[in-house]
């Protein structure tokens, strides 16, 4: 077995609970189960006691097909606010637009941001390019209708976690290449960037923690089918394949040492630096994948959340 960093003790304790519903190894036969297990809590429960207002809209996604978008605004907001286009987590196959939303709601409540979270269509029923192009359509829609929905067009930021982080990184590449909306930043939490699974960390955590090599292969295969690992995968789907990382919005990247995406995240930050871009990278010792979502009460999660929120505040607050 390969040597690997251990889990932080508080997080290891958390795994005793997390392991009860989120298996380390997700195979294709578990996709239906994961859709139940990883479904978000009812949004009304999440919003109870928060000064946040929810609006649901239908917009045109990829090829103009209707998709649902939720807009979360600070109650009593007036004028144009910073906008955040959020891509939810779930390995490209599960989760919904409110998965992991609690961590970004802080930006709505405390920083006065308007959050746009689209229900992008997911693999394997809707393989590449549906998820990322639904998201790109939503980003364009948000920029085009910025004034109508209460967003400053010159202050739109991307954010996403895990598979959503990978999609967000792809959106930033696509927006640059297509002369799309101007972006002030991209928050990539432990992003899923590389379908090839070539980094050492990909192989270090088989069967432990959250989201191992096999789970990752399940997700990428659902998205890309036979193309996974082959020569024809778009960098908008797998941003690690991008050969040009110049002229991107400032990136904030965070990841744990005890997860398969560690080395992909570090390499992506290094690629941005090599291209003369701005990236802030935080690698949290002993963190398993998405530990801030599953165990937000731990010291490591509080540090990660605080650090991320400070960066977002710097970028988007009035």
């Amino acid at each position: 077995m390969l040597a690997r960093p251990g889990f932080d003790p508080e997080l290891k304790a958390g795994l005793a609970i997390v392991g009860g519903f989120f298996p380390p190894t997700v195979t294709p036969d578990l996709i239906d189960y994961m859709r139940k297990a990883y479904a978000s809590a009812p949004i009304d429960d999440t919003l109870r006691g928060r000064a946040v207002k929810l609006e649901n809209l239908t917009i045109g996604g990829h090829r103009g097909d209707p998709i649902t978008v939720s807009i979360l605004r600070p109650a009593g907001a007036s004028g144009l606010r910073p906008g955040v286009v959020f891509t939810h987590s779930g390995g490209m196959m599960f989760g919904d637009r409110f998965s992991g939303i609690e961590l970004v709601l802080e930006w709505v409540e405390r920083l006065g941001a308007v959050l746009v979270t689209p229900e992008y269509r997911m693999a394997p029923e809707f393989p590449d390019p549906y998820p990322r192009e639904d998201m790109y359509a939503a980003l364009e829609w948000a920029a085009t209708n910025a004034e109508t929905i209460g967003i400053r067009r010159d202050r739109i930021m991307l954010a996403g976690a895990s598979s959503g982080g990978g999609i967000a990184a792809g959106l930033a590449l696509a927006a640059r290449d297509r002369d799309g909306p101007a972006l002030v930043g991209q928050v990539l939490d432990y992003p899923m960037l590389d379908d090839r699974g070539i980094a050492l960390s990909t192989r270090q955590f088989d069967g432990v923690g959250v989201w191992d090599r096999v789970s990752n292969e399940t997700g990428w295969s659902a998205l890309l089918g036979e193309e996974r690992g082959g020569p024809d995968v778009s960098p908008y789907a797998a941003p690690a394949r991008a050969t040009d990382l110049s002229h991107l919005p400032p990136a904030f990247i965070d990841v744990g040492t005890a997860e398969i995406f560690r080395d992909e995240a570090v390499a992506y930050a290094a690629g941005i630096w090599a291209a003369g871009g701005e990236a802030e990278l935080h690698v949290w010792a002993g963190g398993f994948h998405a530990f801030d979502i599953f165990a937000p009460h731990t010291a490591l999660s509080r540090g990660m959340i605080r650090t991320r929120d400070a960066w977002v505040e710097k970028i988007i607050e009035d």
Partner: protein
Amino acid sequence: MQELLGKIAALDPEASLGLRVIACFDELIIGNVNTRALLSAAASLAGCNAGYAQEHPRRVVRVTPRGELAPSDGAGPGGLVQQADGLTVWLEREGPKHANDDMILERLALSVRIRCGQGTQDLDNRRDLGVLLDGAVPVDERQLAATRLGLSTTGSHRVVAAPLFALWGGARPRGPEDVVPTSLGSLHAVVVPSDCTTVSASPAGIGIACGVEHLPHSFRTALVALRLCSLPGTPLVNADEYAGLIGLLADAPSDAHMPDVDLLDDVMTHAWACPTLDALIRAGSLRQAARLGGVHHSTMQQRVDVIAAMMGFDPIDGLGRTRLGIAYLVWRLRHSRVLDLPAPNAAVEASA
């Protein structure tokens, strides 16, 4: 994590959340985390503030379910309270008590005592069942632990071992149970009477029967039996099926040099390997093996020839059969995936 506990319960009403709470605090104790981390875990599991107070020197800490500190000025114990040795812990539960509150509070009290209690550096945080199953503990201490657990020191017992995520259908066996740290991670152990030879758990291993002084050995054989399970076909293995052989396996070092097992790695790359070896080690003749394996005897003969060529000995002749049998058992142990299975409800969902 209260929401996660709710999720587990919704997905699998049979899941034992209490065991998960115990395992969670076991890891916190082993990890030697500080008081705030212990209170954070308790508050997060309970979904309400958790507090701690000590008398000398006076110190009060209150932590929210998000791990943030709550004001402690003038605050004191409220809600559900447990007190011992000048230390007090509590859960600020409003309204009726929740199902896991007692367990969370008990584990919080224990772990805070270990972290903060005076002169507790050597406080043994081991619980009776962990002591009883640890062969490194002197036998008289283990016998005392057995007595405290209400086990007859003259009777015969077995240990049942299962992962925390095991599915339990029907009645659970009666007997002392706990989460016990092992080299394979925290496992659920139950001591049952020796006439209990099956349990309705999947996966689970049942150890050999013995007196209380040999229960550490029964536990080791239960762990081997557990690792010989493979779902969905073999949810339960009783060590009795392998008698003395399993004892040898239990006491062999995990990194023992076993050339036959290394050779078997190549054989096992064949798709037919598992059912063929299963049949060969159970059968008394090539024809019987073919029947058990559901193939024509000439096919079985071809496979035996392949195995003989790769292993360098005839697998159905004399000592060769024994060598193959042992190598196959060890190979299964080394490649056992039963302890990193996904959540059990996944299998239920998949088959539903």
